[in-house]
């Protein structure tokens, strides 16, 4: 309290400049230090990814020789090898199709639930859904496999979409709840006064306002679905393989085709990188949803 009153005195500016003493040279040194540290962080985060990109354009002979990392003739044969396998385009499609279906369906189910749980403060119900985020997935896989195999669904898209929805519903619920929490309740009350029914107020007023939240939840969900490996490893068949599982086609006991693996890794990472580039703001707000409210 006393501190704040200092600030309000007219000469607080002067005080500040007297007390915070780091001189011009000290400040400059700090700025340079900071710039160098930022550069170091960038290098640590980017160089490995660049190495993956570079290796995808190297012959396996060039990959085996790390002593001359930058002198090589870029070749496309790794990508050719990957796509020469006709099924690979199918795997790309599978990844997209499963992710898009799972994202749309989980938003369709998760958004109304998020609205209700935020509006009526249903903390226990929210906790039940978030349990899906906590439970080890493997404990679900054996029973799921058993049931879905009996239904004849294993190896089809429906199992993959259902299992991904299971991961994505808690994600979109968490994000959308914190989004609905931030919308003023007065808006809804005004809509009710104007004669809308409560569900009408949700559908016509709150839902259009929550488009940024839907974009956040949708984009983050897409990334989680695209990147998912464990459920796909067990539940996909030869026709429904997704990209993270398909990379293992290039690994065998005898040899590892590093060129093809790096090309396949680039193929599966590029779409996500593009999403990150254009939707960075949404990814950040999705990651930090609820975190800053404490």
């Amino acid at each position: 309290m006393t501190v704040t009153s200092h600030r309000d005195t007219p000469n607080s500016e002067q005080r500040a400049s007297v007390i915070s003493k780091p001189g011009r040279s000290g400040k400059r040194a700090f700025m340079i230090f900071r710039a160098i540290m930022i550069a170091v962080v960038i290098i640590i985060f980017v160089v490995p990814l660049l190495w993956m990109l570079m290796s995808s354009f190297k012959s396996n002979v060039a990959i085996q020789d790390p002593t001359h990392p930058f002198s090589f003739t870029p070749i496309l044969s790794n990508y050719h090898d990957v796509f020469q396998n006709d099924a690979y385009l199918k795997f790309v499609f599978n990844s997209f199709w499963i992710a898009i279906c799972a994202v749309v369906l989980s938003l369709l189910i998760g958004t109304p639930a998020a609205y209700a749980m935020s509006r009526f403060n249903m903390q226990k119900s929210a906790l039940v859904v978030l349990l899906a985020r906590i439970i080890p997935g493997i404990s679900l896989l054996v029973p799921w496999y058993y049931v879905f195999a009996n239904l004849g669904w294993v190896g089809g898209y429906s199992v993959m979409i259902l299992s991904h929805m299971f991961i994505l519903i808690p994600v979109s619920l968490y994000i959308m709840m914190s989004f609905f929490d931030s919308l003023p309740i007065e808006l809804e009350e005004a809509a009710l006064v104007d004669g809308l029914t409560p569900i009408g107020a949700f559908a016509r007023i709150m839902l259009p306002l929550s488009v940024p939240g839907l974009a956040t939840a949708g984009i983050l969900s897409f990334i989680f679905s695209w990147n998912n490996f464990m459920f796909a490893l067990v539940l996909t068949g030869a026709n429904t393989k997704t990209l993270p599982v398909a990379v293992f086609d290039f690994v065998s006991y005898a040899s590892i085709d590093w060129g093809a693996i790096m090309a396949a890794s680039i193929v599966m990472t590029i779409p996500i990188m593009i999403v990150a580039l254009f939707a960075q703001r949404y990814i950040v707000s999705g990651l930090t949803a609820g975190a800053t409210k404490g």
Partner: protein
Amino acid sequence: MATVVLDSKVDGETLGAQLWRWTNKHRKWVLASPALIFTIVMIGFPIGWTIYLSLTNAYGSVRSPFSFVGLHNYATALTDTDRFWPAVGRTFIFTGGALILELAAGMGVALLLWRPFKAQGAIRVIVLLPFVATPVAVAMMWRLILDPNIGFANEMLSWIGIGPQPWFASSFATLPTLIMVDVWEFTPMVAIVLLAGLSALPNDIDEAARIDGAGPWQRFRFVTLPLLRPVLLVAVMLRAIDALKTFDLLYTVKGPGGGSFHEAETLNIYAYTLSFQYNNFGLASAVLIIFFVIILIVLGLLAVSRRTKS
């Protein structure tokens, strides 16, 4: 149907109007139930099934007959110092190591990027990349970079006169190397959460402390850090849940069983191996139940520490 009729207070309403009125009146559960029912169906049956299987000697094909053995599987797991307890140890070493390093590094990166600077937007996108990249691709990439013979890491170390390291090739170095890769992958996520927390801090408290003569370290230690505590705990919770269950990285680098000496076998990998390599569903289920209880205990402790000190 009975409820619909009971609820209607207006005579002569059409059935559609009655239904609409009922839906509006009970919107809380109408809107929430699809997500709840989906989750309960997808979780409820498997949990019951897993608990049941954990009390049996189910083995081999999912359809072959099995019988009830009581708590035998739990006893087997809890007295198994060969696979089970080392896996518990590795789970905690991996999670603890990764969590501590990610918090420290994440805090460093967040503080570095906090105050505005040139090209801030571009640099924040770059920081995001390791986290959004597909974990399997990231693991493959590090397998190549850290390969003892053809990897770039040892080549770089040789430039500064450090001898080649075994990385994943030695059972002793595997776990620390895996922690290192996990730190590379998830520090960005921690940094971004903390950065949002830092940006939301009221500026005037920091300012006031500075006017009162507090140095940068004092201001960080006694002003910023306590204010950031709730956000820090959210980051710890989110990371703890995922780190305990790490699968993609460990499986891609070492495969089922966690390598020839099980050097990368955490509880999650052990449960996977028991289920899908050995088809020992009974024991796998017992391990999974114990694992789930461990996760709940860790989260419970975190939640309690969050409540008591704030």
